[in-house]
């Protein structure tokens, strides 16, 4: 068994990813950068989720080769898989809309393309 490392690197990485991505989402005006921010936020949340289920020294929860005593938790992995696919779907739709918006306005700047007021 490994000794517990006081620095929880995966959680720190997830926090960094989420912090940076929230900065991008709130302050960047370019629509593509906005989408990249959302993709990074998704990556951070997914990393957090999958890191939750890790048991020190554990292997993948698959019986083809691994005994059950050293398995990590399967549910967070399943949740992460689901969440990844969901985010792929969301990204595809967002990118499509941006392509369409670019066709209409010729700009990726969220300030310039905003025709709506209020």
């Amino acid at each position: 068994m490994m000794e517990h490392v006081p620095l929880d690197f995966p959680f720190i990485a997830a926090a960094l990813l989420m912090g940076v991505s929230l900065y991008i989402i709130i302050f960047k005006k370019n629509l593509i950068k906005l989408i990249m921010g959302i993709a990074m936020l998704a990556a951070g949340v997914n990393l957090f989720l999958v890191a939750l289920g890790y048991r020190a020294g554990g292997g993948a929860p698959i019986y083809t080769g691994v005994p059950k005593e050293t398995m990590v938790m399967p549910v967070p992995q399943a949740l992460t898989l689901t969440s990844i696919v969901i985010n792929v779907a969301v990204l595809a739709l967002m990118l499509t809309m941006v392509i369409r918006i670019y066709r209409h306005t010729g700009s990726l700047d969220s300030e310039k393309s905003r025709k709506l007021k209020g």
Partner: protein
Amino acid sequence: MDSLIYHSPALIVALPLVVAFAILLISRAGYRVRNIFSLVIFGLIAFLVAVLAVDVHSVGIRVYTFGATAAELALPGGYMVPVRIMFEVDGMSIFMGIIITTVTLAALIYSLHFLKGQTGQARFYSLMMLLYAGMMGLAFTGDMFNLFVFLEIASIAGAGLAAYRTNMADALEGGFKYIVVSAVSALLVLFAIGILYSQYNVLSIAALANYMQYTTLDMIALGLLGGAFVMKLAGVPLHMWAPDTYTVAPAGTTPMILAASYTSMYALYRITFTIYGAHIDSTAIGWIVIVVGVLSMFIGVMMAVHQTDIKRMMAYHAISQGGYMLLGVGVGLAVLANPVALASYGRDAINGGVFHIINHVFYKALLFMTAEAIFFRIGTRDTNKMGGLARNMKWTAVFYIIGALAISGIPPFNGFASKLLIYETVLKFNPVLAVIAMFVSLVTLASFVKVFYSAFTGPEMPAYREVREVPKSMIIGMAILAACVIFFGIFPGLIVDNLVAPATEALINQTPYINAVMGAVP
């Protein structure tokens, strides 16, 4: 029949999915086959919802565990924690289910003619059914992660529909705003779910409520969930997306996206009351809800008065009316820990807030449909360019009047019934809030009367002399909602006793919801 009731929670969500998947194949056989197919299956679904509603009214809670050996078997043989995903349908869930189903039925009928000559009709119907399935799943589910999944289904389908008119740049921007807001809020929800899972290692709502200890981590999760859902339900100060999206969504789908917002409100209530109910400092949380509600009411209506775009004005009114619901429920939440106050006015306040959801969805859906009907015929949403439309569009004008009077809280329409409940109870809680609520209602009336005069009355505009009434299917769609508005206004007691009171009871008392899962050890 028994097995139909037994499986109805699963069928209500699965059948629209089947329609959505199959409709692209079926529409190759022609539009008529497709329309009949979707209407027939949707009729069956509506029937199932009605049957389930009657059943839930008598039984209380119906649990449906997916993949178990028996649907009620939430806990696998003698085990302590639920393992599988389950649906839990209680008074509040079926209340939302009835709202969503009625609005979707009206929207489906309304859209039949609207889509005439448009491209991508089959995909439009497919997305509509997916949006319906997403909302119903969100209302029925008893599992946190499943809630996230259905939230995403509803958001993506809603965004795709909102951007349907791709030849207009503002439609795409409205859809894009909606999906960005949805994606960010859904990811925050997912993060909060992760935090909850890290502590209790369960995902079922009932099990979470059972184990809840209200640590600092739980507070963080509640904050994230609250923020995310307030953003999704367009509460001030996170309402920026709503006017843009509601304005551009094509006919029939605006009411559905509106209903999707209130499904998020349902999720917020479900989390606050059912998961956290017994532990939170309900006065503080109640006041937060009240403040968000009052801000939404006031800012929404103030932004609405000077809009010239008719749908945009209605969208701001939707934000404002959402504030009433939050106000009513917030007052109830603030006195949740005080049995005397709860019995004397708290319960009625929640009744009012919950009743206002169904009333508002119906009349606002009706108003959005009339606005779309005008847009359908004259091609503009600008109220300054309208005039004298009542001459040629009599039905639309009548429906607009019904909706406008209902939203302003004029008897005998349904808005009056729920607003009266809110005024009465809020007056006992804090008179200042009641005065604000009445003031907002007056401004609402003024704003709708102004639009009525500029759009429907006045001299006949030469450009619109040839304007005809909208096709029959659109009138039927609006008539369904108008009938509901009037019926609910004339018999409010009936509705409150049979629909709203069970929903309120389900919110206030979390024990049956928990016991339906955790107490069911065979």
